[in-house]
């Protein structure tokens, strides 16, 4: 019999009940909650007279709606200017009070984007099943966890039963062999993978990322990679546990210690695919061939290396893809054949659950140090992923690097990734963004998003146009 994949093992470990109709009851170890997708779930519990099954499995934090301006933020929830946003954050506070669920509130030092906070606090751990009413829950798979987004009905279901009814997915291994060049980051790997398999390439699969280039990534980089599994169509992406994982987890506030750590480590060491495990599909990329990536269109699969030219409809044989290209060019205000390096961002956003961790900010600061924001760029927002990330960056003086260059250093939250707070693009504005989605209107009505790594976003911010960051940093070709 063939060995097991990491996903097979995690599935088996959480199987409560296998049913004859092919579905299974899967136990959920950690449920993360934020303000946008939870109010209707709590309301559902109330209407049905149900209580949470296991309170200590839940952790809540507001992130999508929180303001990132210091002044507005200082007044806490009551000072959120947008009344609809304020009500949603207040509702989370009230629901957590009413149902006795631990919440990290808006101005707690630990507050931040739920997918940054979870691993940072040790609230998400290797071997766990982790769910949240947010598709980027795949991020936590970087720890060797089975983690995926759910809708609000399932948020209610997990609150009420600590389980989900699921069908097992197929196994997809994405292997990135060899080493990536200096200046090429986890974000570029993620975008190159999506460019290769397409935005529906992972549909129906659980992805495991492996290979030398993946093993070489830090935990921050691994989280970036797993975060974007959903942009490749897969609800979950994961990476085997190794020393990098264990070193990251050890000592975190909610992580085990002492004897429990020893037992946990022993269990977690088995969280990798067996050598003879069989995958339903394997995709292999050469790390050395990956260049810094920039999206040109309105789907993450519309992505090319920095030295490429914007494609035209004639470059696509499939009629559906051809018309999608045509529409994307029109929406983005781009011409076929135009160099990607000619695109000039009006704004730059460095943040989001994809790229707002300390390593991301260091990479961006390395490019910015000693340079200034280009005059043609209206605004550069640097939004750390959590209060802890912010404090660490300030201790390293990164905030000064950004502010000296004419950039804005903000309070933690989801911010311009989806523009539910005041941070948004104007119609027609181009943005170099380290977030995860370049959909029409995502960062503001009529806004034009180009997804890039933090280093590439910083390079565009100082150059005034997209540029190969390897030309700006030492040690790169």
């Amino acid at each position: 019999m063939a060995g097991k994949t990491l996903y097979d093992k995690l599935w088996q470990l959480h199987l409560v009940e296998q049913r004859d109709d092919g579905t299974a009851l899967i136990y959920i170890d950690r449920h993360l909650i934020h303000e946008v997708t939870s109010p209707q779930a709590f309301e559902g519990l109330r209407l049905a007279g149900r209580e949470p099954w296991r309170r200590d499995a839940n952790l809540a934090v507001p992130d999508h709606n929180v303001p990132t301006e210091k002044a507005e933020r200082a007044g806490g929830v009551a000072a959120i200017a947008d009344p609809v946003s304020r009500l949603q954050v207040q509702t989370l506070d009230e629901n957590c009070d009413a149902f006795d669920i631990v919440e990290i509130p808006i101005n707690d030092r630990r507050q931040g984007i739920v997918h940054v906070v979870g691993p940072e606090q040790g609230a998400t751990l290797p071997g766990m099943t982790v769910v949240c009413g947010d598709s980027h829950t795949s991020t936590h798979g970087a720890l060797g966890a089975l983690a995926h987004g759910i809708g609000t009905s399932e948020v209610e279901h997990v609150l009420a039963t600590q389980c989900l009814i699921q069908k097992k997915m197929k196994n997809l291994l994405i292997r990135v062999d060899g080493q990536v060049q200096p200046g090429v980051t986890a974000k570029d790997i993620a975008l190159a993978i999506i460019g290769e398999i397409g935005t529906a390439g992972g549909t129906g699969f659980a992805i495991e990322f492996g290979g030398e280039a993946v093993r070489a990534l830090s935990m921050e980089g691994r989280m970036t990679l797993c975060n974007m599994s959903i942009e490749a169509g897969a609800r979950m992406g994961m990476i085997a546990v190794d020393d990098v994982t264990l070193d990251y987890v050890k000592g975190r506030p909610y992580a085990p210690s002492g004897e429990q750590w020893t037992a946990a480590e022993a269990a977690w060491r088995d969280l990798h695919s067996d050598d003879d495990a069989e995958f339903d599909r394997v995709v292999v990329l050469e790390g050395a061939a990956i260049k810094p990536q920039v999206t040109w269109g309105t789907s993450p699969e519309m992505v090319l290396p920095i030295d490429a030219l914007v494609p035209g409809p004639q470059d696509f044989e499939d009629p559906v893809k051809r018309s999608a290209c045509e529409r994307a060019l029109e929406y983005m205000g781009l011409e076929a054949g135009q160099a990607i390096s000619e695109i000039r961002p009006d704004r730059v956003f460095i943040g989001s659950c994809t790229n707002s961790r300390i390593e991301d900010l260091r990479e961006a600061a390395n490019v910015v140090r000693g340079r200034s924001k280009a005059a043609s760029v209206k605004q550069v927002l640097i939004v750390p992923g959590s209060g802890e990330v912010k404090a660490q960056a300030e201790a390293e003086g990164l905030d000064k690097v950004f502010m000296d260059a004419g950039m804005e250093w903000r309070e933690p939250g989801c911010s311009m990734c989806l523009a539910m707070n005041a941070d948004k693009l104007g119609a027609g504005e181009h943005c170099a963004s380290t977030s995860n989605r370049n959909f029409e209107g995502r960062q503001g009505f009529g806004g034009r998003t180009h997804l890039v790594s933090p280093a590439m976003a910083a390079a565009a911010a100082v150059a005034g146009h997209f540029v190969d960051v390897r030309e700006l940093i030492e040690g790169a070709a």
Partner: protein
Amino acid sequence: MKPFTVHSGLVAPMDRANVDTDLIIPKQFLKSIKRSGFGPNLFDELRYLDEGQPGEDCSGRPVNDEFPLNFPRYAGASVLLARENFGCGSSREHAPWALEDYGFRCIIAPSFADIFFNNCFKNGMLPIALDAEIVDGLFQAMYANEGYALEVDLPNQLIRTPEGESIAFEVDAFRKDCTVNGLDDIGITLKSADAIRHYEAGLRQRAPWLFDVIGSR
């Protein structure tokens, strides 16, 4: 949940691939703490020429006459015909809520994004995946015939066309049962409460670090 058995309805097109959930219901409307009322803002950025705001009365807004759902011939449609990877992007259940509130009961496409597909069933909305060629044929028939309607028979897993054709479709047995009978998932799962408690007791032995760490307030 409203049961879904046999539904006949006018068909309307969403003729583009990779329709994402931001397009189905833009983020500003996600600030609502309710489950209903999203219909007027379904496909907001395509339906209207201005930027919509939550709570705004949409009746006076400038309408995009080039967007098919605004064509009089598609008024009252309840079956949406779409292309590959419909519903990709975020996990927002507001997407099926908006489609349902608008009046759609069924979506037919060559493929769906996983989370959206799952969310539909939680709301008595039936997503049906068919071969791309068959979907293409339905698009052509719909464009050619004003008033084109389909009968969707979930118990028999058949779509009946006005031409008298029957198209079979696949659906998971569990989802079918819940959808046909309008069953509440949570109620079903709670019948396994003893199994969950038994599993939990074993887990506490095996991985005690998963318990009582975060606590309650």
